[in-house]
């Protein structure tokens, strides 16, 4: 899966979770860019990403991702 394809999937997940069809994310997107993205919503987001890509994150990974770019890196690493 190319980075573009990963972002295609990621955008779908973000749009679903935050119920906003116009939402798109990029490498530098962080939780401060999306109003409803708080720590409680973060867990729903993680679950949805695991579902969408058929992967699982461990606790360390979930807590250290600083932006969507690092998230995409982790995904790319796991689906290799």
């Amino acid at each position, binding site marked *: 899966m190319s980075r573009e394809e990963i972002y295609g999937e990621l955008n779908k*997940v973000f749009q*679903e*979770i*935050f*119920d906003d069809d116009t939402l798109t994310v990029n490498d530098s997107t962080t939780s401060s860019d999306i109003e409803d993205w708080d*720590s*409680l919503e973060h*867990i*729903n987001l993680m*679950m*949805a990403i695991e*579902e969408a890509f058929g992967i699982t994150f*461990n*606790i360390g990974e*979930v*807590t250290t991702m600083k932006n969507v770019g690092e998230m995409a890196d982790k995904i790319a690493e796991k689906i290799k």
Partner: protein
Amino acid sequence: MKILEYPFSGEKIVEQKRRIKKELLQETNTRLKKKIAILGGSTTNDVKQVLELFLLNMGIEPEFYESEYNQYYEDAMFDNNSLMKFRPDIIYIHTTNRNISGFPEPGDTQETIDAMIDMEMSKFTEMWNRLAQVYECPIIQNNFEFPDYRLMGNRDAYDIHGRINYINRLNMSFCEYAQNHNNFYIQDIQYISSLYGLDKWSDPFYWHMYKYAVSVPAIPTLAFNLANIIKSIYGKNKKALVLDLDNTLWGGVIGDDDVDNIIIGQEVSAGQAFSEFQGYLKDLSKIGVLLNIDSKNDEENAIAGLNHRDCTLHPKDFTVIKANWNPKSRNFVEIAEELNILPDSMVFVDDNPAEREIVRAEVLGASVPDIGQPENYIRAIDRSGFFEVTSFSADDLSRNEMYKENIKRAHFQTKFRDYKDYLKSLDMHAVIKPFEPVYLGRIAQLTNKSNQFNLTTKRFNQAEIEQMAQSDEYITLYGKLSDKFGDNGVVSIVIGKIQGQTLHIVLWLMSCRVLKRDMEYAMMDTLVQKAESKGIHEIKGYYYPTAKNKMVQDFYGDQNFICESKDEKGNAIWSYDIDDSYKYKNQVIEVIA
């Protein structure tokens, strides 16, 4: 909404909760407003959000109070202004085995462990008692799920030091409390976590990450189960099953295959599955679920099939049997009419997806589960929680009989030309008296589930009803009606609040099973007598329209009240001056007051 019906995907619901909520709020049906306090021993944010979806879908609009993280005990035990102001209609205490104070140590004696159980239990019972006393509302408490690991392996279950053993003992003590306290309900997460799979239910990832004791994907399962208890408390259970015959109650098509060739009974595997399903349905009928047939068959064939020697269900087990070639949706609505219940309180069970689609499309609010293969029919119905039992009265035991008697009455009626003659011939006897302790359960049940013949649709819980029954400021009346065909039990409730010389009727309702029997006149006669004896000169009646109570919009006019005011929505105030000219209206029921 399909996405919220069993078997649902928990992940999908959590992911799409915003969109689902938006869609549910676009539906224009009126919903019951309820205030729900969630007191949690772990994170409850998603529990609240997903519970809201299921409740909206079941016709209840919740408003929430949510305790701060793990503050359930403090919120319950100490004065709490914000919870006080919130005035909950229901309190849900969500604790898990993570909240148990301590577990037995290997060297502990039996006495030490017994004392630990007592300590833990008194923490909970003090909390429940205080909540019941301060907030006077139903309390739902979930029991404990099993722990994630077993130190001693299988011995954990029977050794007094084992955690499994300890949790089982605590759960039994919870049950004992529930058996001895009204308005207290256990949510059995010990069972539902096992259905879901304990490994996935208690995934420690979610605990360590966010202090969710129940994993996020499992939360919809928890919330759906909880919503079923709540909807049952507010009388929104289903009442009847409407069943297809061919390939639903037995295998094969009786019209083509002939009665001797239908598949039922212990001889073949497929027959066993249908037999087990019939046995399940028979058990449901014993707790008051009405069974009916809606089948495309000649009636003669349908009856022959049900008389098959290997059938567990026979014609007498059904209230209404419609076997004809009309559209099933039409039969479905006619069954509702004959039973005098609303189509949205019936569940349609048919193996044929096309028939299910027709009923889904044609009958608003009908429940139509996708029942899958015959061996899974029971699960599909059971897991949907249609018939969650929160109160169980003697009436429930005999409900089937009562509805059948009603249908007999309808047939009997056709023999009379004059309706009054018919009513007189029924030999009706009523008991109309102030609320008595033995009937409080039934009275609470009626106030929470009557929708059609209900003037104000005010809901009261048992504690509130008990208070009014004991207060001098209220006149309360229950009405019980029996006739030559049987006893209908408590069927009508009136509550009036006394203010000076005026009586305000805050609640007037009657079960639709005794419509057009003049019971409402007998109730009014007795109410007027009681009011007079208390020096009351004026009675005020109120009508608040809902989607379901149109049949009583002119009720007070019919009782010779005068309409004082009526707003554009139809909310009306009626009044009646009591004077010597009051004429007793009931002439057909013998009343003991």
